[in-house]
């Protein structure tokens, strides 16, 4: 892949999605999977693990693991929305925890890059457990376009 890649090409998007996780050891460690990158709104899935619980007695995920997944998913949405192979870095990120995620069920993360400027990209994500009308969390984040290639 070079700087002239067409990120609207479904095959290119799939290739990027595959490389995305291989290049990020922590995403591999937690098992974050890219589920759908066909449209502007992309989706990843984080399978349930007992390690991710905050309150084992009540059977609730810890909220903070959703932050990691949201950061990664927003980052991928941004990378797919800008041209070339320019890398991005999170400037800031905010989470609103709307309701707890329950044990035993996966977490779905849907993210979209909704605005790009010359230097910055803005993204938002919704986290849910299968019913997007009942989100567990919302995320907004800003990313710096570094001007450097991800391969540099």
């Amino acid at each position: 892949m070079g700087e002239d890649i067409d990120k609207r090409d479904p095959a290119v998007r799939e290739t990027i999605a595959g490389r995305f996780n291989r290049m990020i050891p922590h995403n591999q460690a937690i098992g974050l999977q890219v589920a759908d990158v066909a449209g502007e709104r992309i989706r990843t899935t984080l399978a349930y693990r007992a390690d991710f619980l905050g309150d084992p007695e009540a059977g609730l995920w810890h909220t903070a693991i959703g932050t990691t997944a949201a950061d990664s998913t927003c980052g991928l949405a941004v990378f797919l929305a800008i041209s070339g192979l320019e890398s991005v870095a999170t400037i800031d990120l905010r989470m609103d925890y709307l309701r707890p995620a329950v044990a035993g069920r996966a977490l779905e993360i849907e993210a979209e890059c909704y605005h790009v400027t010359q230097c910055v990209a803005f993204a938002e994500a919704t986290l849910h457990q299968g019913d997007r009308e009942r989100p567990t969390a919302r995320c907004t984040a800003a990313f710096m376009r570094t001007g450097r290639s991800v391969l540099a």
Partner: protein
Amino acid sequence: MSARGERVRAAVAAADYARLIAAIPYAGYLGIGVEHDGEARRYRMPYRDELIGNARKSALHGGTVAGFLELAMQLDVLIAEAQPRLPYAIDFAIDYWRSAGPHDCIADCRLIRSGRRLAQVQAECWQQSRDTPVAFARADFLLRAFDDDDTTPAPGD
């Protein structure tokens, strides 16, 4: 009080932080520890390869720094307010100031305000030098009275 609430309160009272961390699986996964720097509590996330987000640059995944700071603030409220259960996070925000390298992360927390129902906290994360912090975070937590610690937190439901 629930059996868990009793255990958590006993662990806080005895400053048995290892037992406290053991009651929170995700804190255990990140390997978080509580330390003392004089009077102040300090939190540590030891480096390990699994926390890397950018293998080319050996930079920690920003999400792990965020998760660490949220847990540090949550633990700080839990300990300072002797809560029977983990305070429920309402929201969380982080500013990334520098890339975090392949080293331990240390967090200093500041409990800004703690009322009857709400605690507001800030935290700074640094690695090898306190003069070059890598991130700043803030969060709000819902507190629980001891007599209602058996109710499952469910804001929004």
